[in-house]
């Protein structure tokens, strides 16, 4: 597995740009998700008003997280569940391990959870003799291939069916070698068969949560496969792992957010399974877990409260920003070297791992603004990326050459006479260079980043300002 760190963004991006399989997958994804979201939004006249509501609800919650978390805990306990608090990934892992040990768990099934990735729970459980099995089909595929997810909603988007067949043949012991796995239907059946056994055998089921509802002490998961439901219903223990920012006050708040979630993520009006879980088995229930645990993770989130980045905690993990980002669409998720790729990752990752480690991420953006345009809770992502750039600048983390180039330009621009003089010189000199090349410059020292791939259109020769002075005398306004 390649080095997985935001520090390696540039190198990983280069590799991604040269990978034809990945590029093909990214192209398909782009078309698919973008078009489907557009038509889902078109089908619902209230969509934009719902996004405003969603933003307002999350914004309100983020301003009162402590109070709503308290209420949530109280409700969970009232229903016989247990709430655990984890300051960081290490604590969260230990808590989960201890719960698993309580029942002597050997295998654990997992629904899709970004927070689970964030705390790297799988390798930790394995190291402690417990076998975690991802049940979301995409996550399962990349688990077999031992790679990280490349997209929040579609983690195996970079894998083609031949690669999936290889992974199954390698890992499914019960799979007869003569069984054909050439078409997608066969692959799905094989995955269903193999995972069905795991579902039934699991001692503990771990899911994430899209929402934590304070009113009722419930957790809500949203899936299309039904794997989250099998994960949480069949085993003896259900553990929910979620970030503290996932809490919402009431079921009304949750349903308002549910209305924008699937539409933004995949363009579906509603995901196939939206499941509200409240505590463990009740008296008389024929199925369900005996114990219900919620592990609430901080891991840097509380530090954002009161900071200029607070708004990023509104995120409901739909992935729309990734789907619409031209940079993500060019390099895919792995290049970011973070659990959270794409525009949301550019803002979150420095908060979670530090700006020194992640400084390429907020810089690798053209600020085109499409992410903010499609975000269901209207997070101003480009502005937040710019805040990271400001911190980077004042902390002098960016290369000196870049900082000095900007300062020099700004200095010159503060002195109009100097500026205009310099501009005239540059315009003339570049024009002369360009004339030799028929109007374009093919290579420019100090401009190699440009001219490696593009010609540089030469200026017309004189600046506008110098010509306007002369022309104005002869100009008559109507």
């Amino acid at each position, binding site marked *: 597995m390649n080095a997985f760190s935001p520090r390696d963004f540039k190198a990983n991006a280069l590799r991604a740009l040269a990978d034809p399989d990945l590029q093909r997958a990214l192209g398909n994804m782009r078309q698919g998700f973008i078009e489907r979201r557009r038509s889902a939004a078109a089908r619902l006249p209230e969509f934009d008003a719902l996004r405003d509501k969603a933003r307002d609800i999350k914004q309100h919650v983020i301003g009162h997280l402590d109070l709503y978390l308290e209420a949530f805990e109280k409700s969970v306990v009232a229903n016989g569940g247990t709430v655990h608090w984890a300051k960081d990934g290490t604590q969260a892992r230990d808590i989960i391990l201890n719960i698993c040990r309580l029942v002597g768990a050997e295998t654990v099934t997992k629904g899709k959870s970004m927070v689970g990735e964030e705390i790297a729970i799988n390798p930790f459980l394995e190291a402690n003799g417990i076998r975690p099995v991802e049940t979301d089909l995409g996550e399962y595929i990349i688990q077999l291939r031992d790679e990280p997810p490349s997209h929040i909603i579609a983690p195996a988007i970079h894998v083609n069916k031949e690669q999936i067949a290889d992974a199954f043949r390698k890992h499914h012991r019960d799979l007869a070698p003569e069984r054909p796995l050439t078409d997608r239907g066969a692959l799905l059946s094989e995955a269903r068969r193999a995972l069905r056994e795991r579902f039934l055998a699991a001692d503990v089921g771990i899911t994430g949560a899209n929402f934590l509802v304070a009113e009722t002490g419930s957790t809500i998961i949203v899936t*299309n496969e039904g794997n989250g439901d099998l994960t949480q219903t069949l085993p003896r223990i259900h553990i929910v792992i979620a970030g503290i920012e996932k809490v919402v006050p009431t079921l009304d708040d949750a349903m308002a957010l549910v209305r924008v979630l699937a539409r933004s993520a995949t363009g579906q*009006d509603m995901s196939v399974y939206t499941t509200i879980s409240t505590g463990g088995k009740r008296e008389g229930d024929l199925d369900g877990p005996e114990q219900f645990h919620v592990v609430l993770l901080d891991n840097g989130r509380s530090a*954002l409260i009161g900071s200029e980045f607070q708004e990023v905690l509104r995120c409901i993990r739909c992935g729309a920003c990734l789907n619409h980002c031209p940079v993500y669409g060019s390099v895919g998720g792995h290049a970011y070297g973070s659990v959270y790729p794409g525009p949301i990752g550019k803002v979150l990752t420095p908060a979670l791992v530090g700006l020194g480690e992640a400084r390429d991420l907020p810089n690798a953006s053209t600020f085109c603004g499409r992410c903010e345009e499609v975000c269901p809770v209207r997070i101003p992502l480009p502005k937040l990326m710019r805040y990271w750039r400001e911190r980077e600048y004042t902390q002098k983390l960016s290369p000196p050459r870049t900082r000095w180039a900007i300062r020099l330009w700004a200095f010159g621009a503060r002195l109009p006479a100097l500026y205009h003089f310099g501009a005239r010189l540059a315009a003339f000199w570049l024009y002369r260079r360009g004339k030799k090349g028929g109007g374009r410059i093919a290579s420019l020292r100090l401009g190699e980043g440009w001219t490696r791939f593009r010609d540089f259109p030469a200026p017309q020769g004189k600046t506008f300002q110098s010509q306007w002075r002369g022309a104005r005398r002869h100009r008559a306004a109507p």
Partner: protein
Amino acid sequence: MSSARDTIFAALKAGYRGRHESAATVGTDAHLARRAPHLVPARAKPENRKAALAQFTAMAEEASATVARVHTMIEVPGAVADFLRAHNLPMRAVMAPDPFLDAAHWERRRTLEVRKGRAEPFDEVGISVAWRGVVETGTIVMLSGANTPTTLNFLPETEIVVLPADRVVGAYEEALAPLRGTAEEGAKHTLPRVVNFITGPSRSADIEQHLQLGAHGPRRLHIIIVDDQATPA
């Protein structure tokens, strides 16, 4: 040494410095006590029963469920048998032990073998009755309970859901309203262990972005709407 909980709350409170504490608490208490939907889209407000059922059917079918309609509960076993035959499925099903379903008199249809209980791994067909149907997106709402095991909705490959027509509501919140308590009542046992909102059969597009049905949950979801039952919900 302070616990993780203490540390987290201290960090949050520090971030909220300048917030007026009691005003905030009053605000959040008020919000928690509120029981009203935020913004219900027009499509969740059908004009009448007829429009509601038509829209429900259309949306459910768009989500790849199939929908049949019968007038009375007595016709349900026949509708089930028809569906199983049409899809070459065995005439055998596990059924939720919900007394409501007894009105169908399953024993009269000898060719259809029905067992009451929770779903086991070998069950291919499951039959249950819906708590509500939601017009907004053609969604079925199922509750867990002594008579309604959750596994019925997920283990068998084919799920058949009986939906009395008078249990069809417009918006999601309407399906939840009877289950919720007030803020004074607190959270204890207001909701059942699980409330499932189900819209169509299970699916995945994780294999090359190509949509396929039957990922882990049912491959087929068949909804039988029953007209004339006054049901105590």
